Every structure is written in structure tokens, then in C-alpha cells.
């Protein structure tokens, strides 16, 4: 009797949740469709009633503006992608989200600042920029990798066999620890990177795209890093060992693979990617604090989920689509709908994308590449 009552009550609860979720789905999709249609109408005929329906002041975008948004979205997104790889790889191998990965990224950005500041002080930054760039990238990779590896050894390895929630919560603790350590060591002030030399930072025009040299550099470096990572994971024995450990640790060890060492390698590679991302972030936004890792970290985590966590290609694709959506959607969808202050809504857009993906394809755009028994 009472069991029956409970089950009908929970069933009613479920129905209500389902209705609510359906409402959100319909609402979001309607908003997007109406927004895009209104935008297209505006482009065709700005005086049309439908185009002016929600936002009489909307002006639409010129081709150059659109290209500009696309480029800034892609460069922002490729940085998210670089960080997202670390989340995704660690999830693939250990099955938990390392929330302290954003801090690894911040350590990379911070290292880059300290090094480039010194280089500027002794004049090398202007004289031989390329050498400085290579050096700061190497240093950032080194310190980020070091942070990630130490983190694994000190915080996560002792918890290897505990339930997954425990390393997850530990990672949040590690994140606070690193933030406060950096705060204590370098103070709370925002630190600014030296200016990039003019020959690199100047606007250039490639295939009708007007692109700032800095963004071009971000795109190139990110693409090269991702290509190297893809090669390592798919075509070398280290990568095969990583994938084997991700699929089945016990069997991997029976194939003669040292599981601990492979996990350290995974953290190290994820850390290296975050280090590269940190340098690019610093060079592009030219400002770094002890909190720099937080928002990009959360966005990168979102990218990893959007792309399908545990899947490397997905992390890159997720980062790029999230970055582009963040940059384009406010003008494309929100502005025609008459939402005020659209350029401030980047973060809202990013997390709406996350909600959409979770509503329509919870496994992410590219599913997850894990053995079925290991899904959680």
C-alpha cells in the first residue's frame, strides 16, 4: 500500500521532470530558430516586420564583422580545446574529472609571464622574439607538466582505488591549494605580459579574412600541438599503452604495460597541452592572475563534455565549437531577439550550449570512447 503510494508519487515526480525538460528543449530550440530566422531576415531586408519584430534597432552583421567573430571564436575555442584535452584524457584513463586542471593551465600562463617579463627586462624580448617564444613555451610546458605530475603523485595516486567521487572532491581541493599557493607567492595583482613585437601582432589579410597576428599565432600553435598529440596517441607505442590503460587497466598490465607510469604520462601530456594553452592565453589577453585558471578551466571542461568526454577528437571539436558559439551566438541569435547587453553574455551562451548538449545528446557530440563496463 505505502510502497504503491511512493511509487505513484515518484512516477508523478518523473512526469513533472519530463515535462519540464521537454519545455526547456522546446523553449531553447524555439529561441534559437526564431533568433536565426530573424537574423537572416535582417540580412535580407532590414525593414521587414519580422526582422524588426523583437529588436527594432538590430543592424545585422557585415561580412567582415562575421568573419572577425568567427576568427576570434576559433582562436578562443582552440585554446579551450587544448585545455579540454587534459580533462578528457584524465577522464578516459582514470574515470574522474580533474578539476585542478584549470590550475595547471594557470601555472603555464604564470610561468610564461615570469619568463617573458625577465626577457623583456634584459631586452631579449625585442631582439630575438622567436627564441624567447620557444623558451617560454618550453618553460611553461615544463612547469605545467611538473604540476600535473606532482598532483597525480601526491593527491590522486593514493586514492586510485577509492570511489570516483573522492578524487573528484580532492581535485577541487587541489585547485584551491594551487590558486592560493600562487596568490601567496606572486600576490593578487593582475600581471601583464609584455607587448608582442609589431611584425607579429599586426593585422594581416589571409583569404579575405582580416586576422590579427596574435590570433593567427594562437591558431597555428594550437593546430600544431593537436597534430603532435594526435600522432603520439594514435601512432606510437606510448599512445597505444595509454589507450589500453583507458580501456582496461588489468589487461593492460598483463600486456606488460606499467599502468602507473602510463597514468603519469597521461597527466604529463595533458599538462603540457595546458601549458601551451596558458602561454597562448597570456600572449593573447596579456593579463594573468591566480584566478586565471578558473573560468577557462570550467569552459574547457564544458568543451570536453560537449565533444564527448574521454574522446580526444571530441575535446578539440568541443572546444572549437564552444569558442565559436560563444563568439557568434550573441550577435546571431540573441541580438535579433532583443536581449540587452549581448556582448556580455559569452559565458551564459557557453553554458547554454552545455545544457543543450546534455538535453539532446548526453554522451556529447562524439560519444565516449570507453569500454562499456567502465561507463559511469
Amino acid at each position, binding site marked *: 500500500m505505502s510502497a504503491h503510494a511512493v511509487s505513484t508519487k515518484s512516477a508523478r515526480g518523473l512526469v513533472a521532470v519530463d515535462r519540464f525538460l521537454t519545455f526547456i528543449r522546446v523553449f531553447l530550440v524555439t529561441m534559437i530558430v526564431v533568433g536565426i530566422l530573424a537574423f537572416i531576415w535582417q540580412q535580407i531586408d532590414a525593414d521587414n516586420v519580422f526582422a524588426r519584430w523583437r529588436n527594432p534597432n538590430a543592424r545585422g552583421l557585415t561580412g567582415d564583422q562575421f568573419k572577425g567573430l568567427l576568427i576570434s571564436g576559433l582562436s578562443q575555442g582552440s585554446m579551450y580545446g587544448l585545455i579540454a584535452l587534459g580533462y578528457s584524457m584524465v577522464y578516459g584513463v582514470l574515470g574522474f574529472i580533474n578539476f585542478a586542471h584549470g590550475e595547471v593551465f594557470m601555472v603555464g600562463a604564470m610561468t610564461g609571464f615570469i619568463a617573458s617579463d625577465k626577457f623583456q627586462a634584459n631586452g631579449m624580448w625585442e631582439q630575438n622574439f622567436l627564441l624567447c617564444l620557444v623558451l617560454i613555451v618550453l618553460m611553461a610546458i615544463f612547469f605545467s607538466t611538473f604540476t600535473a605530475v606532482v598532483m597525480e603523485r601526491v593527491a590522486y595516486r593514493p586514492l586510485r582505488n577509492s570511489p570516483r567521487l573522492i578524487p573528484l572532491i580532492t581535485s577541487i581541493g587541489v585547485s584551491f591549494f594551487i590558486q592560493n599557493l600562487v596568490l601567496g607567492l606572486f600576490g593578487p595583482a593582475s600581471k601583464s605580459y609584455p607587448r608582442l613585437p609589431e611584425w607579429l601582432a599586426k593585422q594581416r589579410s589571409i583569404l579575405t579574412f582580416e586576422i590579427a597576428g596574435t590570433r593567427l599565432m594562437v591558431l597555428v600553435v594550437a593546430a600544431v600541438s593537436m597534430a603532435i598529440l594526435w600522432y603520439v596517441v594514435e601512432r606510437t607505442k606510448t599512445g597505444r599503452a595509454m589507450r*589500453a590503460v583507458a580501456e582496461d587497466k588489468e589487461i593492460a598490465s598483463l600486456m606488460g*604495460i606499467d599502468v602507473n607510469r602510463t597514468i603519469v604520462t597521461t597527466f604529463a601530456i595533458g599538462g603540457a597541452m595546458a601549458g601551451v594553452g596558458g602561454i597562448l592565453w597570456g600572449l593573447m589577453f596579456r593579463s594573468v592572475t591566480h584566478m586565471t585558471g578558473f573560468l577557462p578551466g570550467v569552459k574547457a571542461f564544458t568543451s570536453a563534455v560537449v565533444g564527448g568526454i574521454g574522446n580526444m577528437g571530441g575535446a578539440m571539436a568541443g572546444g572549437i565549437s564552444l569558442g565559436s558559439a560563444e563568439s557568434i551566438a550573441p550577435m546571431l541569435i540573441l541580438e535579433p531577439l532583443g536581449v540587452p547587453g549581448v556582448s556580455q553574455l559569452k559565458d551564459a551562451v557557453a553554458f547554454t550550449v552545455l545544457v543543450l548538449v546534455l538535453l539532446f545528446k548526453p554522451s556529447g557530440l562524439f560519444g565516449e570512447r570507453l569500454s562499456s563496463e567502465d561507463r559511469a
Partner: protein
Amino acid sequence: MSLLEIRDLKITFGGLDALSGLNFHVDEGEIVSVIGPNGAGKTTFFNAISGLVPPTEGEIEFEGESIVGLDPSIVTSLGIARTFQNVRLFPNMTILENVMVAQHCRTNQLLVGALLQTKAFKKEEREIRERAEEVLGFFGHRLVGYRMDQPAFALSYANRRRLEIARAMATQPRMLLLDEPVAGMNPIETAELTELIGRLRTEWGFTIVVIEHDMKVVRDVSDRVVVLDHGVPIAQGSYDEVSTDPNVIEAYLGRPVEAAS
């Protein structure tokens, strides 16, 4: 000296003795079958040798050196490979990759070599691939050609079993532990695999320990049969000796009615 020597092996899970006081040896080049009713401790015995389950007591020596307490990866690198009763492949990796990854402990190039694309790295990758193709070729045309680049989950059941054996072979072991290699196969596939087990010894020089329920296979492949029941060996010898041993018949079929009373 025996290749594998096990003395007084005891494994306890909670209050249950999975193995109690097992003595066992395998000589170089032998094929030994381990049989016994369900729950006799056969798989636990394999788990103990391959380092997945630490023994509660007792000694396991491989080539005269103790392997108790070593990590499974080290046991593999010393030359013991195994397969599983419920096939355990890397389902999302391709067939070729499954076999290539198994050579991990036989190769020594580091990541740096890969990043710098050194000659030694390229040569080693080529050798890994060639060896993988050679091992897969042992099973005829089934695992080679276009199939090599398919993911392992796309394989048929029997081919998964074959791939698992190929993967164990690729670790370049001296001793191969096969856990029910023909389980779930049809009679034709079983006969074929029985022949392959013989060839694993003659052509590849492996010493083989096999757990099997199919008595026809046991009869055809083994030099020696060891019967386990409740974690202790109750008989050993040739197939004919063991199959007529009253203790063995009792373990499998129960005691005759008049003897029980």
C-alpha cells in the same frame, strides 16, 4: 629444473579457501591441462601465477626465481602470458593495435624518440607491426588483411578468442596460460584450435598450461593432466590415468549411492 614451480600455494578470500596447499610444476615444453569442476579454483590459480591475486601463502617460482608479489606487468615481461575465460580484449582498439600493444614490454623506445622521429623509433615501430602481422598470420586468413584495421568489438566470438591468443603470443612469452580456449566454439572450430595449441608448442616453442572443460580437447593436447577440486589437486598423470581415477569420477559425478551410505 621445472620452468614453473609452485609450492604450498594457498589463497583465501574472506573465509573461503580458493586454493589450499597446491603443489604444481610445469617442465619446459610441456602441455599441461588443469581440469576440475566449477569452483575448483582453476581460474584463481591462473590469477595467482599472472600476479592479479596475491597468494596468502606459498611460493611461485618461474625459472627458479620467485614471482610472488610482482606486478602483473613484470610477470608478463618475465615471460608468462595468459588469456581469459571471458575474452578480454581492448574492444575499441583495432585488431592490429591489440596485438601491437601487447609488445609493449619487449620494446624500449621512449616518447622522445617518437617526437624526434629518430631512425631507431621508426625501425622499432616497423618491427612491432611486422611481428604483429606474423602473429595474426598464425590463425590463417581470419585476422589479417582488411580485418587488421577493424575495431576488436566487430569480431565474431571465435575470432575474439583467436585474437586473445594472438595477443598473448605477441608478448613473446615462454609460457602461455590458456583459460578455456575453446569455450563456446563449435566442434569444427574446436578441432581447429586443438591443432593450433599443438602447433603453438612445436612451432613457437611455448610451454602451455590450459584450463579446459572439453575432455576431447584435454585428451588431444595434454602431456599431463592435473585435476583440482576444492582448491587441492586430487589427481595427476596422463589423460588415461586421470580419467579412470575413482577420485576424479567422484569429484565430477558425486559418490556412488552404495558408497555414500
